[in-house]
């Protein structure tokens, strides 16, 4: 098992109380697996991704464990995590393109990063150049400033930098959202290439865009309001989902080929619950067409089929 997450709970501290952003999630990602993490805003996917690498000031660890290759990740301790970041678990953050310091050359940034992790920039240079070429970037990029590169180029640069030390798990947080369609394809394919070449063992791709996940992910994990809803292979999620939320989500996505005049798609009425004081039981039940009194008790996330997990009383 590459990554094992067990009942992880992370809340946000606010003036009005704790926001239950991540309320007990348990799942695993195998070696070589690209898992897509999808859901709407406020579902907790970014929180999950970030909690595995670095807590920001407002996040509060409440409970649970995360294990990579058998070793526990001390996610609650920022300093202890220093030894794991970049080597064992790495992240390509959201808005990575604007995460590059505009006043420094890319090469200097990389050198600093490597030195901070006890590596010699000169020694790593050949490998760095090789990887840049592999993703289709001219190694001369190292001498340039961020503003000289296009969005897609910056994204790929950050991806190469994040995987330089061959981490076991790479978390990619909304890396394709701000890109053009043609660049999205290039970046998505680059990501899969990293896994195929062994630069990373497993990937967690966080996005709201299910169609991208269908293209590049092996499995997709759907989250809703801080809980897990469904996990299955990409093909299964898209063509035969079992959780009511997943079904409603899939049927609300327009595709090239579907036209308003022929088939009107429908959204999901209502809004996700506030997480300051979340409702008991299944958090989707007030919007679910199949809701019943049983749903007031939180359904367990169980395997209903080979590799197919669902959290719904109607399905188990």
């Amino acid at each position: 098992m590459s990554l094992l997450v067990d009942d992880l709970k992370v809340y946000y501290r606010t003036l009005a109380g704790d926001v239950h952003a991540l309320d007990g999630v348990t799942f695993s990602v195998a070696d070589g697996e690209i898992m897509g993490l999808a859901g709407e805003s406020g579902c907790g996917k970014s929180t999950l991704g970030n909690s595995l690498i670095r807590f920001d000031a407002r996040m509060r660890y409440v409970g649970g464990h995360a294990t990579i290759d058998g070793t526990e990740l001390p996610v609650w301790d920022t300093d202890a995590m220093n030894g794991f970041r970049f080597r064992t678990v790495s992240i390509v953050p959201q808005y990575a393109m604007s995460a590059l310091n505009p006043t420094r050359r890319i090469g200097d940034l990389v050198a600093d990063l490597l030195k901070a992790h006890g590596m010699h920039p000169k020694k790593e240079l050949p490998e760095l150049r090789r990887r840049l070429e592999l993703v289709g970037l001219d190694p001369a990029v190292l001498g340039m400033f961020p503003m000289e590169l296009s969005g897609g180029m910056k994204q790929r640069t950050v991806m190469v930098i994040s995987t330089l030390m061959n981490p076991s798990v790479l978390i990619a947080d909304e890396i394709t959202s701000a890109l053009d369609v043609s660049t999205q394809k290039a970046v998505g394919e680059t990501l899969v290439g990293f896994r195929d070449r062994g630069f990373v063992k497993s990937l967690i791709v966080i996005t709201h865009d299910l169609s991208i996940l269908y293209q590049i992910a092996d499995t997709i994990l759907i989250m809703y309001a801080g809980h897990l809803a469904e996990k299955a292979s990409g093909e299964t999620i898209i063509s035969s989902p079992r959780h009511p939320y997943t079904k409603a989500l899939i049927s609300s996505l327009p595709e090239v080929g579907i036209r308003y005049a022929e088939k009107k798609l429908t959204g999901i009425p209502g809004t996700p619950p506030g997480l300051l004081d979340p409702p008991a039981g299944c958090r989707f039940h007030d919007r679910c067409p199949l809701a019943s009194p049983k749903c007031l008790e939180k359904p367990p996330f169980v395997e209903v089929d080979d590799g197919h997990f669902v959290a719904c009383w109607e399905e188990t």
Partner: protein
Amino acid sequence: MSSTPVAGPLAAEKAPTPAAASRWSGTQESIHFALRNRKLVFGLSVTLVMLLFALIGPWIAQHPPLEYGGDLYWAPTTRNGHWFGTTMLGQDVFAQFATGLRLLFIVGALAGGIAASIGMVVGFTAGYRGGFVDDMLNMLTNVVLVIPTFALLLVIAAYLQVRGIMTEAIFIGLTSWPWAARALRAQTFSLVSRDFVDMARMSGRNSRQIIFKEIAPNMSSYLFMMFILLFGGAVLIAATLDFIGLGPSNTISLGMMMQLSVQNAALQLHMWWWFIPPGLAIMLIVGSLYVMNVGLDEVFNPKLREL
């Protein structure tokens, strides 16, 4: 210009639940944080105490400030109402101090007000219009910025027989607006590109209405803080000018008190009551204004608040 890149799609939906759950309106929340902020409370208290002193002081002083009396070199005492002692020439230090304090507030407010007004006009216009107008106003700002104010004041002083408070205040106001204009221009730039300005245009509003009804209110905290900084700056400049003898010629101010005390070797004569009160007052007022400003920044900017 190319279209804005496709933004992170869920940035719009990230309206954090805490804000939606807030029980208070924006103003109430601001007041709550304001009262809890120690820097703001401290700064405001000191300033208000000094202001009170400035208002009441001249009334309760026992002697006119410039009157030469017979009690020379007196240390602070309750005799004859010389609570702060007297100067070389028998003038009551308390009366001088109180008058000077009042003058300080007047000059600060006036000069700060003038500088703020000019800064606003120039900054808003440059930021909103952009292009050629912006370039021209930038040149003007830069020119005024590099004018050596000291030399200019010497020249003016040479020509004016009598200099009053107004002259000093106007002069300071006319020479300290450039950095305010710069800062406001930058703020205006960032707001003008926001969509709500386009929305206001599409609702039939003209430029003047947009600047004063949409943009300026958004910067109200910034404008307020800027005025405080200009006030503090004006006080310091006035004190400096007074100290080197370029102050008003018909009255006494804190800076002038310090100038006279140095000229008359008060330090060597251990007449601490002559130069310490004015110096301390200037330091306290300007310092507390700046501290207040830092506190205000925390109040207005939610990201700086501690939870």
